[in-house]
C-alpha cells in the first residue's frame, strides 16, 4: 500500500499481537498482511484510485492507504466493475433467512420491496458486516451504557446475517463486547457521522471525565496505534463521556472535527462552558502543569516531554496547558464495527461448530474480522481484512461453482 513509509510484515504482526493481547489467529493475520500488498493491485485493476496521504497535520506514518474519494468511491468503482462483467446487483434487498443443511448452503430468503423471494445458489459469500447498528444487541453485551454509544457508519448493520449463521450452527469467534471503538466528537449524529467526527487532539492535551479528572495516559504511544483504545476508555467513564482539553499552542497540529471546539479565555471559563466541575478541572490542569518535565516537543515521534509523579502519567507530548484561549471537545465512544463473528479458515470458508469447514459458505469483512482482531485495533487492519478476505472468499466461491 502507498503509505507514508514501509510497514514490514513482522513489525505489523508484532503491533497486531500487542494491541490484541495475542488474541489473533496468527496464520490468518500473516495471510492478511502478506496478501494486502497484492490486493492494492487487484483493487486498482477494478477501478479503485489511491491518492497520496491526505493533507492536514494528522500523523499518518504507518497507517492505511487512502482512496481517492473515500470508501463510497471505492465501492462505486467496484460495483461498476462488477456490473460491467455482467454481475446483477439487487439494491434495497435484505437477507432475512438462510437455509443450511449439514453445513451446506442451499438457499436464502431475501426481502425486496416488501416481497420475500428465495434465491438458490451453489455458494454463498457472506459479507454483511457486524452488529454495530443493532442497539439492542449492543446493550446485551454492554448493558445500558450502549445507549450513549454513537455509531460511526450506516444504521443498517443490524447483524442479521451474523445471527442467521450463528443460529445455523456456524462456530462463533470473538467477544460480543469487543469492537473497533474510537473516541469521536460527542456532538456527532447517532448514526453515520463518519470520518468528519474524528478528533486527533487527544495526545496534544489532557482528557478528563465528567468529574473533571484524568483517567488514562494520553501520550502512551503514537496516535495511529492508540486512537482505537479511546472509545473503550470513554465508554468506561460515567455517562460514557469525556473531554479533551488543549490550549492555543497546539492549534493547527491536528485535524479538527466538523464541530467547532468549545472555547474559554481561562480554564475555569472553559470548564464551565463544557458543563464540568470548575474547581476540579482547574485543580487537574494545575497538577498536570506542575508535573510536566522540560523536554523537546516533537509531535511526529515519541518525544521526551513527559510528566513526573503524576498518576496517570502522560508519557509523551506533555506540555503545560497555559496559553489562552483554551479549547475543549466532548468525546463519546464511536463504534466502527463489532468483532463477534464467524470462524473461518485460510480459504475464508466458515467453520461449523464441530470444526469442519463448510464446503460452500465463505465470509469476508467485519463478519469475520474477529478471527484476527480479538480486541484492540491497528490503523488500516479493517480495510486489509476486508479486501484480502473479500478476494479469497470470492475466488473460493467461484471455484465451488465452476
Amino acid at each position: 500500500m502507498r503509505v507514508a513509509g514501509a510497514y514490514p510484515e513482522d513489525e505489523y504482526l508484532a503491533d497486531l499481537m500487542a494491541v490484541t493481547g495475542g488474541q489473533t489467529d496468527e496464520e490468518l493475520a500473516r495471510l492478511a498482511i502478506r496478501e494486502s500488498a497484492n490486493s492494492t493491485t487487484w483493487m486498482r485493476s477494478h477501478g479503485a484510485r489511491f491518492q497520496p496521504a491526505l493533507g492536514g497535520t494528522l500523523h499518518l506514518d504507518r497507517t492505511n492507504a487512502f482512496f481517492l474519494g473515500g470508501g463510497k468511491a471505492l465501492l462505486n468503482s467496484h460495483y461498476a466493475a462488477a456490473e460491467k462483467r455482467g454481475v446483477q446487483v439487487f439494491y434495497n434487498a435484505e437477507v432475512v433467512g438462510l437455509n443450511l443443511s449439514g453445513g451446506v448452503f442451499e438457499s436464502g430468503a431475501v426481502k425486496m420491496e416488501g416481497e420475500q423471494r428465495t434465491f438458490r445458489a451453489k455458494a454463498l459469500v457472506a459479507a454483511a458486516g457486524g452488529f454495530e447498528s443493532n442497539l439492542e444487541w449492543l446493550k446485551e453485551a454492554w448493558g445500558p451504557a450502549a445507549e450513549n454509544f454513537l455509531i460511526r457508519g450506516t444504521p443498517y448493520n443490524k447483524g442479521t446475517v451474523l445471527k442467521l449463521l450463528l443460529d445455523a450452527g456456524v462456530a462463533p469467534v470473538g467477544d460480543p463486547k469487543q469492537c473497533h471503538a474510537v473516541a469521536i466528537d460527542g456532538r456527532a449524529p447517532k448514526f453515520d457521522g463518519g470520518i468528519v467526527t474524528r478528533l486527533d487532539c487527544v495526545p496534544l492535551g489532557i482528557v478528563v471525565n465528567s468529574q473533571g479528572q484524568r483517567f488514562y495516559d494520553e501520550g502512551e504511544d503514537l496516535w495511529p496505534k492508540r486512537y482505537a483504545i479511546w472509545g473503550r476508555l470513554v465508554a468506561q467513564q460515567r455517562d460514557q463521556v469525556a473531554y479533551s482539553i488543549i490550549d492555543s499552542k497546539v492549534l493547527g497540529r491536528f485535524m479538527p472535527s466538523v464541530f467547532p471546539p468549545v472555547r474559554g479565555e481561562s480554564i475555569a471559563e472553559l470548564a464551565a462552558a463544557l458543563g464540568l466541575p470548575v474547581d476540579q478541572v482547574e485543580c487537574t490542569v494545575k497538577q498536570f502543569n506542575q508535573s510536566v518535565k522540560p523536554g523537546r516537543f516533537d509531535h511526529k515521534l515519541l518525544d521526551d516531554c513527559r510528566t513526573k509523579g503524576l498518576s496517570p502519567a502522560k508519557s509523551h507530548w506533555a506540555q503545560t496547558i497555559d496559553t489562552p484561549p483554551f479549547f475543549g471537545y466532548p468525546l463519546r465512544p464511536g463504534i466502527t464495527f463489532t468483532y463477534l463473528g464467524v470462524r473461518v479458515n485460510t480459504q475464508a470458508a466458515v467453520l461449523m461448530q464441530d470444526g469442519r469447514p463448510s464446503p460452500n459458505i465463505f465470509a469476508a469483512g467485519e463478519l469475520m474480522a474477529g478471527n484476527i482482531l480479538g480486541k484492540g485495533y491497528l490503523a488500516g487492519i479493517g480495510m486489509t481484512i476486508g479486501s484480502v478476505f473479500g478476494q479469497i472468499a470470492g475466488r473460493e466461491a467461484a471455484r465451488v461453482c465452476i
Partner: protein
Amino acid sequence: MTICNACRYCEGYCAVFPAMERRITFSDADLNYLANLCHNCTACLDACQYAPPHEFAVDVPRVLAEIREESYRHYSFPHWYGGPVALILAISIAAFLFAASRLNHATMTAVFGTAAIVVVGLMAGGFMRFWKESQGSLNPTGLRYALTLKYLDKKDGRRVFHHLTFYGFLLCFAATSVAAFYHYFLSFEAPYGYFSVPVVLGTLGGIGLLIGTAGLFAVKRTGSSFLVLLFLTSLTGLLLLALRQTPAARPVLAIHLGTVLTLFVTMPYGKFVHGIYRLGALLVGPAD
C-alpha cells in the same frame, strides 16, 4: 465546507478541495473563486458519504453552481445574467432579413466590429473584477489545466465534447481572422474555394461545434441558450456554405448573421463567461 475540510477524501479530485483547505472562513470573493474553479464534474458528489439522503445533505457541485451563476451577475457590467436571448435572436434575424438586399461588406464590418469591441471590453472588465477580488498571483500552469480540461474528469464524454466545442469555436475564429487578413492585406476577396484556408478552418470548426454542442446537450440533458446559439451558428454557417451558390444563399446568410450577432451581444451575459472566470480561477496561484 467545514464538512469537506474535516473529511478531505476528495482532495485528489480537483483544485477546489486543496483551495478550500487553505481557508478556514470563506468570504464572498473566496466562494466566487471556488465556485468558478469547479468544473461541475460531480465526482465529489458521487463519492460523498454525506450526500443526500444523509442528514448533512452535502452537495458541493450544486451549491457551487448556484454561487457561480450569481457570480456571473456580480462580475458583469451592468449586473445582468441571462436575458431575452430568443427575442434578441428574432430581432437580429429579422433585421438582417429586412436589410438582406442592401447588405454589403462595409456594413457587416461596422456592425460586427462595433459589437466585438464592446463585447470584448465588457468581458475584459468582468475578468479584471474577478481577478482583483480573487487576489491571486499568476500561476501559468493554470492555462494548461484550462486548455486540457484537467479537472473535467468524467467518463461520460463531457471532456471530449467540450474540447470539440471549444476548439471548434477557436477554428471558426481563426477562419474569420484568416479571411479578414486575405481581405484587407491581400485584397483577396470572398467567396473562397472549398479547399481554401478560411473555408477548411471554418468547416472543421463548424463540424466540431455541431458535434460538441449536441454531445454536451446529450450528456448534460440540459444546456444554456449560449450552447443553443453555438449550435445554431455552426448549423446555419455550414448550411450557408452548402447553399452559397443557390438563391437561398441570401436569406440563409441573413439568418446566420443574425445568429452570430445574437451570440456576440449576449456573450457577456450568458454561459460564455464561464470560460473567462474558470480560466481566471485556474490562473490564480499558488500552483496545486
